[in-house]
């Protein structure tokens, strides 16, 4: 009487195949023990001293941003605290995680600027020989425009050939007041030649070019600056020399033009910032469909989107460049073929890790403080914060608890108890496999509360089986034979479990979206264990019961099957048609 399409054997085979694939992936990772949390294993402590005298508010903000950076998914279980008035301490599980130092301490101040001059502002800029290849910093484009930007190799900066009206239409164009920007401005002449110290070009109050106190300069003004860079700024560019190695270490003031370099030593004169990092709504990393290297894709809020579209529209087809400036360094400069009304891509010399780290940092915003990279940052190894006996105690407790649960199930459900035990074992194996896989791919770490959570999840997992078995028994009490009862009970138990697990999944999803830190970690674990519960229930427990219902031991109600008349509390059970 089983349903025609019921092929329990096939479902079971597919299930075990998938499980084998999971373990195959784990084997590729080559790690058979999960990463333990700070409390059980210790980890790396990074101490960072902020520059200057930040306010306590700024420190708090910096703390929470760093917390989101290292613990964005909530499964890493890192701990970020402030100490004293100007220190931030990051504790990360796992030994020697010094690779994270850079990611954690990066200020991530992102700005979009237009490039007025490269290397030098000599008016004979149409000679392309002046410009070295800008290959390393090429190719910002947008998915919207397809293969928008060819690398701006040796692009001659033609100062004509664009029309603001055509490009932008409705926006008020060309304030002539700002047209001759800082002819009267007095450069402070602090463009010191000392390469490693701050060139601080922003010290000059070139008032006419910064009408906007709140930072963002309108695209019109930036375009004006780009086409007619004032003489004092081009002089500064000429005076500036790029530092040999590392960051230019310039002070990046958004309302001011900027002289800086990219990683290959090309120096730029840049307009005031047109888009700030705060306009970035989301950032992701990956390889574009027809690209080769890793890129970081940025999505903007509406104002940023508009400014980006205006700016790309203004330079479209002119071979003029716009630059993406991160912490004062040009990380990418590119042309645009057309007005780009979408998201921006940053390409550069990214590896997978560095692209992911940059996207992560841009997503959570810039730090309000900066750190002294040379002497302000130190890291050390820290030991576990819980005594060693806690882990063994937790594991012992889990073992004893599981044993008791199995004993109870065997006593109460007899033969069916074996199915419960089998399901729990398979669930345990699946959970362990997933934890291993996630600790490899998502830095999932298991701390003591996490282990306790997994043990508690056993009870919730077992509940679906209990609901199912009780349903089967109820159906048999109504006089159905076992094989009929298995199907009828399944339909009812399935609905109950879907509804109840739906609530859990909903909780996991919403808490993950809205929560932060530990709450996210919890939501993740809850979602994982609920999903595994459903998978086991649908693809292991039910097919197994279906399969067992073909055996006389069960469908004739053997005394040890758990489905005999006595266990059901009835006088006699109905056996199948041919009995």
């Amino acid at each position: 009487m089983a349903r025609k399409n019921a092929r329990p054997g096939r479902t079971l085979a597919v299930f075990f195949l998938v499980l084998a694939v999971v373990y195959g992936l784990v084997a590729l990772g080559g790690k058979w023990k999960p990463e333990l949390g700070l409390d059980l294993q210790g980890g790396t402590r990074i101490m960072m001293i902020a520059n200057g005298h930040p306010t306590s508010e700024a420190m708090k903000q910096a703390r929470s941003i760093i917390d989101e950076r290292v613990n964005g998914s909530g499964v890493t279980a890192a701990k970020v605290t402030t100490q004293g008035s100007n220190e931030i301490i990051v504790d990360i599980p796992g030994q020697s995680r010094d690779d994270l130092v850079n990611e954690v301490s990066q200020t991530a101040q992102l700005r979009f600027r237009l490039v007025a001059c490269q290397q030098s502002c000599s008016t004979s800029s149409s000679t392309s020989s002046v410009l070295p290849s800008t290959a390393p910093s090429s190719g910002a484009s947008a998915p919207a425009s397809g293969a928008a930007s060819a690398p701006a190799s040796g692009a001659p900066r033609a100062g004509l050939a664009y029309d603001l009206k055509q490009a932008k239409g409705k926006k008020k164009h060309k304030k002539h007041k700002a047209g001759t920007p800082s002819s009267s401005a007095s450069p402070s002449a602090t463009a010191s030649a000392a390469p490693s110290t701050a060139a601080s070009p922003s010290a000059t109050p070139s008032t006419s070019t910064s009408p906007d106190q709140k930072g963002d300069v309108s695209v019109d003004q930036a375009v004006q600056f780009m086409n007619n860079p004032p003489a004092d700024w081009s002089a500064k560019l000429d005076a500036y020399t790029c530092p040999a190695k590392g960051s230019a270490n310039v002070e990046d003031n958004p309302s001011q033009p900027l002289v800086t370099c990219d990683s290959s030593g090309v120096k730029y004169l840049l307009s005031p910032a047109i888009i700030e990092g705060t306009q970035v709504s989301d950032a992701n990393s990956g390889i574009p469909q027809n690209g080769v290297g890793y890129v970081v894709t940025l999505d903007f809020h509406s104002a940023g989107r508009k400014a980006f579209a205006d700016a790309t529209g203004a330079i479209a087809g002119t071979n003029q460049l716009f630059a993406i400036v991160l912490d004062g360094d040009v990380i990418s400069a590119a042309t645009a073929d057309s007005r780009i009304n979408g998201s921006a891509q940053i390409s550069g010399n990214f590896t997978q890790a560095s692209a992911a780290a940059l996207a992560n940092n841009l997503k959570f915003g810039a730090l309000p403080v900066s750190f002294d990279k040379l002497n302000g940052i130190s890291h050390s190894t820290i030991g576990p914060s819980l005594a060693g006996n806690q882990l063994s105690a937790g594991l012992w407790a889990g073992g004893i608890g599981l044993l008791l649960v199995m004993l109870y199930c065997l006593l109460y459900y007899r033969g069916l108890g074996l199915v419960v035990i089998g399901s729990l074992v398979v669930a345990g194996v699946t959970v362990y496999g997933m934890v291993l896989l996630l600790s490899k791919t998502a830095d999932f770490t298991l701390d003591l509360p996490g282990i306790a959570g997994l043990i508690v999840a056993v009870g919730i997992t077992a509940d679906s089986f209990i609901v199912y078995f009780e349903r089967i028994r109820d159906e048999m009490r109504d006089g159905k034979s076992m094989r009929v009862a298995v199907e009828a009970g399944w339909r009812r138990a399935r609905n109950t479990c879907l509804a109840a697990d739906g609530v859990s999944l909903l909780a996991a999803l919403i808490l993950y979206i809205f929560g932060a830190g530990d709450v996210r970690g919890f939501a993740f674990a809850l979602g994982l264990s609920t999903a595994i519960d459903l998978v086991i229930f649908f693809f292991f427990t039910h097919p197994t019961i279906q399969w067992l219902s073909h055996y006389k031991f069960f469908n004739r109600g053997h005394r040890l099957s758990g489905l005999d008349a006595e266990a059901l509390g009835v006088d006699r059970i109905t056996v199948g048609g041919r009995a």
Partner: protein
Amino acid sequence: MSKFTRLGNSLYTGEKSIDFVGRKWTWYAISAVIIIAAILGLSLKGLNMGLEFTGGTQYTVTVSGTASQKVADSVRTAVGGSGVKAASDPTVTTSGAHNLIIQIKSVSQAENTTVLKAITDTTHVSAKNVSQDHVGASWGKEVATKAIQGLVVFLVAVMLFIAMYTRQWKMSVAALVALAHDVVITVGVYALSGFEVTPATVTGFLTILGFSLYDTVVVFDKIKENTKNLRATKRSYADAANLAVNQTLVRSINTSIVALIPVAAILWVSAVQLGTSTLKDLALALFVGMAAGTYSSIFIATPLFVQLKSGEKEVLDAERRARRARQADPYANVPAFVEGMEVEDDGIPAELREGEETTAPHGFRTRPNTDAMGRGRTAPPARGPVRESGSSGRRQPTRQPRSKRGK
């Protein structure tokens, strides 16, 4: 064991029945007492927030030898046992090869001296090798704000979900009341016991939250199923809901046993092996919360839901139908005598008791039937529509054939 399984069958058929719905005021009173105790504890003692929420003091000790895990453990015991309340659960870690880091909650000057002495005595270093600093909270306000935001959204979403699934918004209300009941009790346990609230505790609260709703949905699903066809079963809404709870009772007992055994094991092992520890605190909260979660779905959520429903026309109709059905055959639910049937203590056979829906042994007795029916005091209302009949020239009551009448 066989008694228990027997019970499962009699609960399923309704032969035995515990009156969860009818005796609601008893359950409400029990819960009210516990909740008042919890609220009193919360308002008088307050919660003991941990280092992660409050921030505190950090001591960095440079030890003379190597800073091994053993030294860290002994310092942890010494500081924890120093008698300073804020330092009862210190965080002690090794840092590098020669440093120990001890974090405790903020302390007064005198307490600071005590803690410092405990540290220097255990590690045999002079006080000048110990530096102090203030550490901020790692669970800042914004994490809490976000968590509460998420919680509110979740509660709204789950109300919508339950209302959509069961098509009865009153079920979501009852489920939420049961949830609040569980959470208040668990928070009260923390306040009364003075356990430290850590991020792990928050995780525990969320687990309880999830479990409570999960369990309530399982019970409500059965109620939904049983009350779907009240017209045919001729039961009142309260009786159908009560039967549903009784039918899921075996599941509820089994689930709570299976869910609580591992937690109890953690509680026991950590209490015996470890003394005071975070694990024990967490396990206690989970134990209380999960027990409360199973209790509240049966004793709070279900009666409350039936009470909320009791004014609805549909429910009142079902009530009337049920009463009528009982009147049509008052003994319909009295089981026929079979061999080996339990006989009541007072010697009156089950068949001779009137007005009782079920015959239950003591302890499981349902409330007495107080209806005046079948005793000749009130004229029964007409069973069906009364119409003219040609045979006698006067109105005749109609009677449906037995097959149409149900039982």
